[in-house]
């Protein structure tokens, strides 16, 4: 039993050693100096942070709702929230693409014939008449999503938020709801009791949820590739950089970026461990 467990630890260690021994410091630094990789690094930091902030923002009230209230459809919502976790990443990306480009049901009755964009042609999407979310965002709001950086954030958010909701629900499960009841007898509304009593107690859970969401967003690849594409200097993040560098035979650069991602992941895991130790004490 112990031998089997140590085999797994050994495997992880060997993987890291193999990566480290594959590239020299010079090769590593040369790869990281490439403008396209630096651009991907900046976009990764920005989109992961945006996805993590959005995730915590959505997961905090949703986690609270699922933890504290019993209402019709609660089990269904609880299950729906977990779907992005179990869905194959490519399917999630494809679903996002269809959501943004599929005419909404019955909207075709009131809409003009659509004009197909180059991106849609490239993706092989044939438009039917009707109200289309991406068209509306592009023409009315002036904020196109598909194959642009917002698509990266959305693809990362779709998965990261599911993990954040789970974390926040567990956080609120561990907080004594009696304190909120007492706060209500002391003059608070339900909302005030949440903000003044439950939320301050959940602060460490929120940091943990944000960190987990950030780490998940960092590793996201499939949905980004399908929904945002992998265009250099535009929608390329570190996970897609590894894929692009590999596809052009630049193994050194791919390994360098992989090591950078490992370093970022280790940093995030250390924060999580520190938070976990603090919470348990």
């Amino acid at each position, binding site marked *: 039993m112990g031998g089997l467990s140590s085999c797994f630890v050994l495997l992880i260690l060997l993987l890291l050693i193999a990566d480290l021994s594959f590239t020299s410091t010079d090769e590593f630094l040369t790869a990281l100096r490439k403008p396209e990789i630096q651009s991907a690094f900046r976009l990764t930091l920005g989109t992961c942070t945006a996805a993590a902030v959005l995730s915590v923002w959505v997961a905090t009230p949703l986690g609270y709702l699922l933890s504290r209230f019993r209402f019709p459809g609660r089990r269904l919502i609880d299950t729906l929230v977990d779907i992005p976790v179990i869905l194959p990443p490519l399917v999630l990306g494809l679903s996002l693409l269809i959501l943004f480009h599929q005419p909404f049901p019955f909207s075709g009755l009131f809409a003009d014939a659509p004009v197909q964009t180059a991106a849609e042609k490239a993706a092989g999407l044939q438009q039917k008449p009707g109200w289309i979310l991406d068209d509306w965002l592009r023409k009315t709001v002036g904020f196109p999503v598909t194959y642009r950086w917002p698509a990266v954030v959305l693809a990362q958010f779709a998965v990261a938020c599911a993990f954040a909701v789970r974390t926040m629900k567990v956080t609120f499960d561990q907080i*004594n709801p009696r*304190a909120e*009841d007492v*706060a209500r*007898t002391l*003059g608070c509304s339900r909302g005030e009791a949440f903000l003044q009593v439950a939320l301050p107690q959940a602060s460490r859970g929120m940091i943990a949820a944000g960190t987990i969401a950030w780490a998940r967003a960092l590793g996201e690849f499939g949905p980004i590739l399908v929904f945002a594409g992998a265009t250099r200097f535009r929608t390329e993040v570190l996970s897609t950089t590894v894929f692009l560098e590999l596809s052009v035979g630049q193994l050194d650069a791919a390994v360098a970026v992989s090591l950078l991602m490992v370093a970022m992941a280790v940093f995030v895991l250390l924060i999580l461990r520190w938070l976990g130790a603090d919470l348990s004490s």
Partner: protein
Amino acid sequence: MIEASAISIQAGQYELRRISFRIESGQYAVMMGRTGIGKTTILEAICGLRKVHSGIIRINGQDVTRWTPAERQLGYMPQDLALFPTMTVRRNIEFSLRVRRQPEVQRKRRVEELAGLLRIEHLLERSTEALSGGEAQRVALARALAGTQTAILLDEPISALDRQTRQESQQLLKEINRQTGVTFLHVTHNEEEADALADVRLLLEQDSQTGLIGIREA
């Protein structure tokens, strides 16, 4: 004065039907009954945390049945005390005064008055996590008293304390009841506690034949 007239409450598997009792202003009432019979449920219904399906709850003669817990302005002290762990003792006690936007001078005066009454002046700047059982119980009582001029509902507040601290707490509770004139409704299943505290005893019991839960003055 607290009055329940034929209140019915659905609580999970069981139901409390047509429960009626009356506690006069300033009285110290002790409610007793076996574990799981619904004592906590009744307390929650009186302070507005649990919905009453029928019947009327009156506080000082006013029908408060549909009022929110905040509107009822009753002090509630649950069994686990539920102190706010992210706040100091002072912030716990002045919580209701802050929520009701009382000026700082009044808040400070009231906190010091209550701290003096409960002999916890030395604890005011401490974290609630650094308190002993007896100290935490006094802080919770001060917090409940700060939020009400009318009545305090206590759910087995001293059952977890050791014998000596429990006896001290009993004396303190009775003393505060006399000094403040606030009505107390105290839930316990400890006979000794009831003997020491009760002006009036309410006994919650289940009819062996009908299975219905009723309340009577004992």
